[in-house]
């Protein structure tokens, strides 16, 4: 982020920022920045494309050798090839997609889908050697159970020191999302983030359960819970209109 560039450079170390939001960088005026035309979340562009990533980082680092600043804000000229959908991608098989229904049904469906996706997720781990499930500190089935408890109208205590119950819920939701999206991307195809998001938020019971959880907690009298449910569970672009 560009403001950090000011502070660190004032302390005597040269910096170069990557910029995803050009107007923000223009306002902040860091010593040096490279604007990249990639989606939020991908400052170095496509995953599993070392040559492309290297071109991005080198274009940024080369700004350290320029003498015509401050302020330097340059543009990276290439688009992310992985932003395009892959027509060969097929989502994992989940029988009878559920997009809405009573909270109890969605809670049960969520827990079932976690089991249905085990093979696909193990395939993912075999392919990439890693999972990003882990913020909650729980297993993904325990995350699903924790989320299901909330859907059943209970308020289960936090299961980790240092987390309030609403924060525990937020990280459990994060882990469920990470697990499902990793499972969905297993295999040789290279789905775009939009393909994966369309599938998760519109084609799975897990997505429907998180939508329902958000809607239910928005009616809570706990302002902190309302804030977390409203802003930190369903991406703004995926929020369903009321009704």
């Amino acid at each position, binding site marked *: *982020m*560009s*403001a*950090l*560039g*000011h502070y*660190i450079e*004032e302390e*005597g*170390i*040269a*910096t*170069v*920022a*990557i*910029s995803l*939001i050009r*107007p*923000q960088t223009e*306002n*902040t005026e860091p*010593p040096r920045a490279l604007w990249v*035309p*990639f*989606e*939020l*979340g*991908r*400052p*170095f*562009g*496509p*995953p*599993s494309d*070392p040559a492309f*990533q*290297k071109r991005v*980082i*080198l274009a*940024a*680092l080369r700004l*350290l050798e320029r003498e015509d600043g*401050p302020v330097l804000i340059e543009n990276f000229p290439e688009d*992310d090839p992985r932003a395009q959908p892959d027509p060969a991608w097929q989502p994992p098989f989940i029988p009878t997609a559920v997009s809405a229904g009573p909270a109890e049904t969605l809670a049960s469906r969520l827990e079932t889908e976690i089991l249905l996706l085990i093979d696909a997720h193990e395939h993912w781990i075999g392919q*990439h050697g*890693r999972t*990003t499930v*882990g*913020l909650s500190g729980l297993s993904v089935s325990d995350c699903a159970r924790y989320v299901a408890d909330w859907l059943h109208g209970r308020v289960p205590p936090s299961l980790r020191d*240092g987390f309030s119950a609403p*924060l525990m819920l937020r*990280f459990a939701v994060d882990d469920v*999302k*990470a697990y499902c*999206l990793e499972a969905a*991307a297993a295999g040789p195809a290279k789905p775009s*983030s939009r393909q994966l998001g369309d599938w998760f938020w519109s084609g799975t019971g897990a997505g429907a359960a998180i939508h329902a959880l958000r809607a239910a907690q928005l009616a809570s009298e706990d302002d902190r819970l309302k804030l977390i449910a409203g802003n*930190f569970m*369903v991406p703004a*672009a995926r929020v369903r209109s009321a009704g």
Partner: protein
Amino acid sequence: MTRLTDLPPTQAKRLAELECPDFETRPWVTGPALSQRRVAIVSSAGLVVRGEMPFRGRDPDYRVISAATKAEDLLISHISINFDRTGFQEDRNVVFPLDRLNDLANEDVIGSVAATHYSFMGATDPVQMEPHARELAGRLKRDRVDAVILPPV
């Protein structure tokens, strides 16, 4: 290709108009050729090492990420959910390009890679981050870092 015009209008407006501090200086530090620089990553993606405390809300401090941290032990705990995480799930270098820095060092394009890297959580008010960033600069100097790349998320 994704630009602000691809985001929901309210999100795009909020991001473009985020307030930033009114900086009174225009710092500009020069240094040796890139091939002699020691480079560190200071991310604002809310990165944490697995098992450590994630960023909670808008914590203004930073987390320490050793260069020896395994790819499977790096997680994103940024407060915002309005950005793609699937790229990072597949390849940490999309957000945290440590392998690419190592490539560049092996090719003698840069001098070396820092022993330690860092992450803030970028949705925090920069004014709250300032004392932590200045303290971090001291750590970077002790690691002989003379070039910092600042990736957002």
